[in-house]
């Protein structure tokens, strides 16, 4: 009897302590799809099911609404994934376009998504995700676009949600969608010349997601796993170089001038770019511990079920983490 009780309590203890496993998915954002061994390994070993794949952008540069940077043909069978198309739409699309263009937009977007998916042999997708950093002046047009897209496509509609749109949802509005994808990255502008990490500022994240449980639409959370160096040239102009790690800068070619900033001692080729002496590079990366802290915060904070989506599935970033780091 005693043993039985002991077993029971042990069992209860184990159940009570076990961490809920959050399912992991990925974004894919390149126009030229390259799925290699690393991508396949991480995707499989993390038991990922969904790939949210950017298929094109929509913009209006002044000569009408047009699709931009369409994804090139790719082999969808390389990953055992359910594909969800993502379309990025600029704000000026909604600001600059005529009423007629905007009324035709949902039809055009759906047609191009369908053609892209069919052409790449992805027969069924039940959701479309739209990425747009809407503002007060584009909200109305964006929300009606979403409604119309749902009507035309008959699919579920998701939308990315910026952190401020969670905290100030009363002001910014909540889009008419089936699923929200809360972007927990790009917390500030990389062109701001500060020491802060523009990719993810954890204190800002915690502040903006204080009341995330009140968000009225079911949501998933997206975390960054990219890093870059912000290069500043002789005129103070900047350029981003993806996938730079700190250890590449701790060499004789660079002089460390502050915690995260390095100065070039000579003209060099670096990540395919030619850079000149005296240019500075500021490194911004998401360390495994920062990632862990963000995930722990979600664990404690979020009371509903959610999926975690990493931005994005790219070997050059993945290899900076172990599989465990990303679990």
């Amino acid at each position, binding site marked *: 009897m005693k043993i039985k009780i002991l077993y029971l309590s042990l069992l209860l203890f184990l159940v009570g302590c076990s961490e809920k496993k959050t399912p992991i998915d990925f974004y894919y954002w390149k126009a*030229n799809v390259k799925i290699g061994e690393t991508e396949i390994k991480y995707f499989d070993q993390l038991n990922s099911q969904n790939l949210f794949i950017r298929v094109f952008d929509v913009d209006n540069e002044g000569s009408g609404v*047009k699709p931009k940077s369409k994804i*090139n043909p790719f082999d969808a069978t390389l990953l055992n994934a359910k594909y969800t198309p993502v379309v990025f739409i*600029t704000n000026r699309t909604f600001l*600059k376009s005529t009423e007629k263009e905007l009324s035709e937009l949902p039809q055009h977007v759906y047609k191009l998504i369908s053609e892209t998916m069919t052409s790449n042999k992805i027969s069924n997708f039940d959701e479309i995700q739209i990425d747009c950093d809407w503002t007060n002046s584009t909200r109305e047009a964006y929300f009606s676009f979403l409604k119309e897209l749902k009507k035309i496509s008959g699919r579920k509609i998701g939308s990315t949600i910026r952190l401020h749109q969670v905290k100030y949802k009363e002001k910014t509005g909540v889009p008419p969608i089936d699923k929200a994808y809360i972007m927990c990255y790009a917390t500030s502008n990389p062109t701001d010349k500060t020491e802060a990490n523009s990719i993810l500022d954890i204190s800002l994240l915690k502040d903006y997601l204080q009341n995330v449980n009140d968000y009225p639409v079911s949501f998933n959370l997206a975390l960054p796993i990219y890093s870059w160096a912000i290069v500043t040239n*002789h*005129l103070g102009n900047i350029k981003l170089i993806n996938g730079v790690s700190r250890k590449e800068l701790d060499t004789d070619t660079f002089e460390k001038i502050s915690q995260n900033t390095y100065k070039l001692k000579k*003209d060099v080729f670096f990540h395919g770019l030619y*850079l000149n*002496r005296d240019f500075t590079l500021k490194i911004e990366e998401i360390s495994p511990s920062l990632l862990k802290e963000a995930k722990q915060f979600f664990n404690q904070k979020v009371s509903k079920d959610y999926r975690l989506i990493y931005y994005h599935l790219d070997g050059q970033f993945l290899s900076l983490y172990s599989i465990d780091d990303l679990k």
Partner: protein
Amino acid sequence: MKKIILLAALLFTFNNQAKPCADYDPDYDYYNLFMQELVSDPQYYPFLMSYHLGYYSVPENVIKNDNIEQWQKYLGISYEQALHLVFKASRDDVRSLINGKSVSDANLKFITPAFVSKHKQSLLYLAYAKYLEPYMTITHIPSDEWSYYYPSDKTVDKLDYNQVINVLTKSWNAETDKELKLRYGYQLVRFAHYNRNYGDAVKYFDTYVEPLNYKPAIYYYALDQKSGALKGLNKVVEANYGFFQVFVHSPELKTGAYSSLTINNEIDFQGLMRMLKTDKERNDLYLMLGYSEFNNPLPSIEKIVSKTPDAIQAKVLMARTINSIERTILHTNQSCEECSNADKRMPISSKSENKFSDDALKISVSVANNLATKDKNFWNMTTAYLYFLNKDFSNAKKYLALVNPTTKMYASQKKQFELYIYISEQPSITAEVEETLFTKYKQEFNSLKEENYYYNSFIVDLLANRYFIQKDYAKSFLLNNSISALEYNPRLDLLNDIEAFVNKKNKNAFENYIANNVNPYGERDNKSFNIMDYIYNMKGDIYLSDGNLDQALKAYDRVSPHFKMWAKTGADYNGFSKIPTSIFGYNEIECFECSDNMTMGVQYLSDFPSIGTAGTMNKPQIVKALLSLKKTASGKSEIAAKANYVLGNFYYNITNTGYYRNIFRFDRTNGNGEKYRSGSEKDIYNGIYFKDYYWNTYFKNDINTPEAYLEKAYEFAKDNELRAQIAFALSKCEQAEYYENNNMQSYYWINSDQIFIKGRKYFEELAKYESTDFYSKVLANCNYFEYYVNHYK
């Protein structure tokens, strides 16, 4: 049908750079004073600096097509004839001519039977090339259409590969002329490359092109195709070397070859460098390193000039350097955030900009002074200009004097720089300077309006800047603006300066030139326009808005009663007269687009004879009525209460939210705009000139004045109908204050959550007069009041 080059589609690595998201052209927001074309070699013009386009845009015909030139020479015809025959004539016409038939294309008349018999083989080649040409595209995704499929029935895969290769090799073997053999060889390489048979393409080049040992323009076209194929085979160093040869030798393919080169690591770079044989080739490679707009071009210039100070590549990079300095220093609208305590004299640069500009100057001086430099004109010019940008005018003059104006471009550039330096070095712009400007440089000023806008407006801005600094505000203002700009931010001090300047006796020629700019837009060429009417009308408005009625009346009395701000005639307000007397009334409904009959309620006006019965008044009449009303309003009787109410209405109606807000703000209608949004007053003397003055829209939104009159009216009014009306008027002031205090800038398009309802004091007051007719009227017309009554009463 769009045609794309295979190289670009297959091999060009797409560089995903962030683009500035604003819709503006970066090539137009700075003064481009330095003519980059001074480098004098059109082949390199595409590599001059342009932020907007991929390559610097070169006018047509500046660079001749080298393939056409080769045909021209070979067939002994003119360039235009060769161009038409090769690029424009139809295949059918060429075949008809071969077969001795006539064609209707008049541009082919030069092809006589004698020509045909002499050049039959060439025409046969051209006919076959024209057959292949439409198919020289590949299947791809159309870039900006709402489709994922390329709708073309003519792509390279639609042709039978073996059949075409067979025809081409047979033709090559049968042909005895080296020129035509080379062209068939080119077709073979291109066709295999477009079919992505890279190995074949390389093989055909080595078999049918290279052994001819003949390298006119078309040889490099073939080499370009072979290099693309090598890249397809991942032979990067060899491909780069091929593209590099194309870059060096082909003016037509230079930009394409540059785009196809991929030098992105030290190994590729050194590999290529080792293969180069001449200084020209090495200089081209250094040019490529310094060409990217993100890179510092100076290290490349130093490497080039150390051995070859006259090299074109160094000039191209220096032209680019100067252009990027112009972009950082010579903004077309210069704010002066960094120079508030520093030198406000243009050209203005910051410390970091100075470093780059100093480095550039050092190099420029050293090449200009280098005894080995043969052509010093370019370097003397760049040195003079860089000294000018650094405000070292004496050295700028010294080097400019050394420039020998050998060409029209050099002469014109020299003269322009001379003028900039002359103006810039003056401690102040005196009458003597003005006279010199209008004698020695009159030509420049005469062409100000017609010619190169940017160059000319730099002179205008430079002078405006100097006048501004020496406090000649009227001249400074009028150089950059017409007086109409004051309609967005009227200022008495500027008006007084302008009045004094316009009335100045014995103006010199240059002052007259500036004064000619004074009339408002639309009246520029109207010689009978009386500018004093305009000035005093504006002064009157300023005084009235400031509550200074006596001065307002004095100002208006100097305006002709027939003065009109707008040419339009009829019953409408014309800028001075025909102001409806309902300006003393109140809004029955809120609607800016509606007519005043529909919007405005008028009551109690007949109690005041000064308002009159004509239905409209002019501005002096308005002021007289206001003075008279003020007198009556000073008492405590019912009539005083009414006078206060009418005054309150008037002053409310001319605030940001009043129906007559346009009357004293120089607008014909009351439609929403910048003039009716609250802002803060700017210090107009803080900048470096008054350029684009109308961007600083500012009108004081005075809600206190109407509120004070209305409160007094409410205090003394006894009649409940009147009290209800006053309470409603006061509640509108409360809402206006709410907007003001909450920074609701564009409150013309308001959301209901921006309305102050709960706790609105004068809704509560109005609610006390439930028995009045006015109460029922408001309840019917005003949803917010209705909401208040239903929820909070």
